[in-house]
């Protein structure tokens, strides 16, 4: 009993790889990994889907899959975090395929999200410009969305993003450049369309 509590108390001092080894047999160790990554994975999925309901559903799937496959996971140059993001990416990609469309925030979801009290202030006060930006991000191809979210939510380096996406650091740098160019063009196009729409009325 004493050992059990001693081990529980020290979970937060262990690094990911030590926790993963324990988590293959010890549910509580997986619980610590869950605590460490829930917010990050949820944020990633939330920004990819644009609504709370799907974000919760898909986040649950990510952790369920991670939990059921952790016995087979081995750190062969792919850290646990990268493995988890790969699972998240695959699940979101499948969801987009099932939806058969690029996800644009439904009005109900947008209103629900804006009213949601748990949402942080900066999101509740999200300006129209930010909403348009995120919609433009969701119109990008999946790999570009993934890159932007890992860079800006996680503030990962190009090398870290490269590990998750299975590309070289140079390829990520180049993709980032092309992504920003595409985003700029999309935003300009949208802005022009709104301006023309406004003058026509």
């Amino acid at each position: 009993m004493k050992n059990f509590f001693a081990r529980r108390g020290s979970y937060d001092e262990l690094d990911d790889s030590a926790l993963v080894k324990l988590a293959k047999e010890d549910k509580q160790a997986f619980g610590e990994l869950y605590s460490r990554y829930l917010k990050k994975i949820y944020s990633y999925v939330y920004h990819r889907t644009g609504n709370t309901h799907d974000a919760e559903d898909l986040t649950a799937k990510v952790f369920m899959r991670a939990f059921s496959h952790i016995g087979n996971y081995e750190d062969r140059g792919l850290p646990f975090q990268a493995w988890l993001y790969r699972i998240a990416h695959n699940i979101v990609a499948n969801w987009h395929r099932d939806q058969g469309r690029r996800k644009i925030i439904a009005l109900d979801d947008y209103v629900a999200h804006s009213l949601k009290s748990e949402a942080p202030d900066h999101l509740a006060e999200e300006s129209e410009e930010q909403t348009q930006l995120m919609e433009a991000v969701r119109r990008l191809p999946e790999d570009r969305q993934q890159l932007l979210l890992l860079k800006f939510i996680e503030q990962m380096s190009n090398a870290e993003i490269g590990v998750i996406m299975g590309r070289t650091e140079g390829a990520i740098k180049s993709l980032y450049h092309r992504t920003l160019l595409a985003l700029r063009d999309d935003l300009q196009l949208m802005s022009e369309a709104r301006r023309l729409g406004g003058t026509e009325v």
Partner: protein
Amino acid sequence: MSSQSDMKAQDALDALTAGLQARENVEDLIAESRTSSAGLEEFVEIIQALHNACALVEPDPEFSDRLRADLLGEQHGMVKRVRQMPARVHIAAALALIAGCLLFMMRRLFGSDAPEQIQEEAIATPL
């Protein structure tokens, strides 16, 4: 294959992004981007907007508790809350339960015929 100017632009964008994320002096970065030949000025606003928009989102605590419970096979909701209460609350609840049971038993054993007795007394009493 990237040209020299592309690579220069990629490096400059990378540095600009890192600088903005590290909250370095934005004015300096913008001035630097103006003077650089990479033409990064137009990206400053987009990168800043991305930095502001792509924030960590807090999941609903009820959702995180429920998912943790589902994953780890823990109790959640009312049962979890009861289990997390201090020991003195558990002891007080147990004592109250024992006292309640004793009271019930005593009433059953010693006071079960009380209503009939009252009825009999009422019938026996002349008007």
